[in-house]
């Protein structure tokens, strides 16, 4: 019979979301909590993000990933928060029973009053992209390569092509170049880079690395190890344009083409997933469709700013705390939030309207001057918007109070003006 312990809050993941949640829960007086971390050290993905640019909002400084994580790790340590390292959560059930395993403690079961999901996301691998060609060694997702370089000190390759010009791809272009590799090109299927301008300048322009917009990898070549890739130009529908193929010699292909929230554990517990975000449907306390299970950070939706990830962690912890205290989390009135015209995804998807609420949303396609409308009595103008930049929209409580009590659906939409 497995030993069963009782927990007030179980937090899965000790990245910026999980740590912020833990620190906030502790600050509010919840002491019976455990953070489960499968890696050997806390910090989550930030451990390997050795570049700077994190924390401008939260700490008014530009920190590296480990420095940002360290702020929270130090807070957690001074608070005496229990972080179980090298511990993997095997299963969570609808009744919030959690099963974990580790070398040092073996199998353990916990009965939890609340669970906060903070597992982050995984990268889209070559197999899921269906990139044609052979299956040689030398194909890495950007995160895999980043871990090899920054944590293990291994060089994944000498001559690299990168697919994907989002921030992760750009950062890796620079990192590889600094470590002596030749980054032959960065290919991007969109007609623009979805990364920050700063990264395009400091990661590509600084090193004269070509950025091939509206291009993708048509085929991978090489029997044992990558020998080259065929790049091809694409039209606005992402279809290859005939006779634009070019063979590029390289020994490594880095893929930075999409992050997927890691919700396997969530689904096991019966948490309903929003196909638009890839993460759980949540209410304004970030509680999922399963009572007592909350979600924050990249597992909820892929974020751009780590500061926001920590904010979500704090909000989820607040929700978990209120639940422990017996508050009903404003379930008297529920409004379904719908990502309508022009809006690709929005979180939270269910709100009570009894508090100020921040919506996080992404537009479907790049737009110039546009107006974002929430229901019938709120709108905000923007000079531009891109799908790769999450919009944070703060709606004061009075806006909800102004809506009739019969309003059960809140549409959020945007249009160019």
């Amino acid at each position, binding site marked *: 019979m*497995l030993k069963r312990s009782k927990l007030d809050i179980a937090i899965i993941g000790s990245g910026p979301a999980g740590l912020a949640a833990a620190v906030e829960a502790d600050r509010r007086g919840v002491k019976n909590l455990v953070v489960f971390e*499968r890696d050997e050290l806390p910090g989550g993905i930030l451990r390997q993000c050795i570049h700077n640019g994190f924390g401008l909002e939260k700490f008014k400084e530009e920190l590296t990933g480990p420095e940002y994580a360290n702020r929270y790790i130090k807070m957690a340590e001074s608070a005496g928060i229990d972080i179980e390292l*090298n511990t*993997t959560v*095997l299963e969570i059930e609808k009744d919030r029973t959690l*099963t974990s*395993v*580790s*070398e*040092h*403690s*073996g*199998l353990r079961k916990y009965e939890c009053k609340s669970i906060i999901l903070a597992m982050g996301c*995984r*990268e889209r*691998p*070559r*197999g*899921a992209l*269906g990139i*044609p*060609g*052979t*299956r*040689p*060694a030398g194909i*890495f*997702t950007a*995160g*895999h390569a980043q*871990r*090899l*370089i920054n*944590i*293990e*000190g*291994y*060089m*994944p*390759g*000498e001559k690299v092509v990168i697919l994907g010009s989002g921030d992760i791809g750009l950062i890796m272009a620079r990192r590889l170049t600094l*470590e*002596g590799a030749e980054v032959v090109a960065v290919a991007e299927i969109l007609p623009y880079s979805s990364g920050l301008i700063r990264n395009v300048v400091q990661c590509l322009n600084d090193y004269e690395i070509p950025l091939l917009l509206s291009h993708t990898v048509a*085929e991978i070549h090489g*029997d*044992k*190890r990558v020998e080259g890739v065929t790049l091809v130009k694409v039209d606005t529908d992402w279809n290859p344009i005939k006779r634009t193929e070019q063979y590029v010699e390289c*020994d*490594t292909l880095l893929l930075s083409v999409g992050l997927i929230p890691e919700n*396997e554990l969530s*689904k096991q517990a019966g948490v309903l997933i929003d196909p638009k975000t890839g993460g759980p449907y949540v209410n304004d306390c970030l509680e999922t469709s399963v009572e007592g299970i909350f979600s924050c950070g990249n597992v909820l939706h892929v974020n751009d700013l780590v500061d926001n990830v920590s904010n979500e962690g704090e909000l989820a912890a607040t929700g978990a705390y209120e639940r422990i205290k017996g508050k009903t989390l404003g379930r008297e009135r529920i409004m379904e939030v719908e990502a309508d015209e022009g809006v690709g995804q929005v979180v939270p998807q269910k709100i009570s309207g009894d508090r100020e609420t921040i919506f996080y949303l992404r537009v479907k396609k790049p737009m110039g001057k546009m107006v974002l409308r929430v229901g019938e009595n709120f709108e905000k103008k923007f000079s531009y918007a891109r799908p790769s930049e999450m919009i944070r929209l703060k709606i004061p409580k009075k806006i909800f109070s102004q809506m009739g009590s019969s309003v059960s659906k809140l549409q959020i939409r945007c249009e160019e003006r």
Partner: protein
Amino acid sequence: MAKAQSVSPAFLGECDVVIIGAGIIGAMIARELSKLKGKFALIEKEAFPGFGVSKASLSQIHLPDFCPIGSLKGKLSANAPQRFKKLARELDLHYREVGEIWLALKQEHIENLWEAKKRGESNGARGYEIIGPEKIRQLEPYVTKKAIAGLYAKEPGVLYTPEWTFALTENAVQNGVSLYLGAAVTGIDKEDDHYYKVTTTRGQIRARYVINAAGLYSDEIAALLGDADIHLELRKGTMLIFDKSVSSLVRHMLFGTFSEKHSQDIAPTAHGNLILGVHYVKPRNKKDTSVSRENIEETFKLGKELVPALREKDMITSFSGILCTNNKASDGDFYIAPSEHAPRAIHVLAGAPGLTAAPGIADMVIRLLVEQGLKAEEKKVFHTRKESFPRFESAPLSKKEKMIASNPKYGHIVCRCEQVTEAEVINAIKRGVDTMDGVKHLTRAGMGRCQGSFCGSSVLKYLANTLGIPATKVTKKGAGSHHIVGYTKQGGESGAGEC
């Protein structure tokens, strides 16, 4: 032929029978042969058993309803499910009986089902049932509403070919067979009236009998033996793997239509994924296992027709395998016969259903060897295989506790997607697995949703540390497929494993 390979002058040894090719068939022959007294050798040009054609196997055990009546492949496939169930017990391996339903989506195809039933029964199989739409829907709630009839059989099953190939090889070695990996055959010469000299890139072997089980390269081996009239016709088949989260969509092996261009087949895998195939095209050459966008799309259409709820975004990977038929047997049948020019040499040219027929093929090859003069005396002691790789993920909670109690490293999860533990990875490496793909195929680490992007660096380190080699020497699938090229500017490994 391939570019010139450097031959080694080393003398590896002498044996009664050398089997060229450690795919599923060669490994099965080796294992069965190892029950007899004598010296046997198994050679394989890839870095690991089963890394050739067998790596891209559909991993399905069929009944002989696909085989023409009276064909050799039909005869050798008889009783396959029972043979594999028995082998699964003896080798402590995974065999999953899922059953099969051959579906007719059009009125005119119903006749095909009856013909298939007739073929199967003539070839010795039993247990067929023709079923109607209600029973189909009961057995398979997600199958297309267009399915109007089905040929149903409970016995067919699925396994994982690379796992079986390794296990058979390991069991053969356990019972005295000498295994030479990374040994490509470059010449077979008659030394005298009793022995052949088989030259390989790893050295020379003297053997009295030669078994050509070299799969895709069996025509080249045949030519070395003087049978230059053996030719192979190749087809490249693309298959797709779908995430475990959609495994409930299909419970049995489901078949649809078959043509030159495809074999419509969607089925559960031994590990709980779905496998979908097979779209055929002509490969550029024997090494062409590339997959094109079109291959993926055409293959996906095959599955969508049978299971409309299938979505491309649930695909986690795709791959191709090369299937071959020979010019010696008619109607795409197996050709398993003594060489026409070389004494004491037997050709085993078996394409699909090579896996299904493997036990039968092994029996036949041994019979042919005996006819050719091999003395067949059973050993007094035949070792059954040591315990298979116990899988933490599929063990019930109580077993998991026992595993951790026996070895705490079962508590350290290395591959999160497939819940593979450090103990399993280390055990595999200690038992001879020395490549990233080998670890992947035998432990499942790296076969899940993230396809190794999280656990890859850990598996690399475990291989380097356990084998005592620098990380730069660890390969994906043998020489030339190194995972990393060096170290960051600082150079050298700090800590264990100095180069």
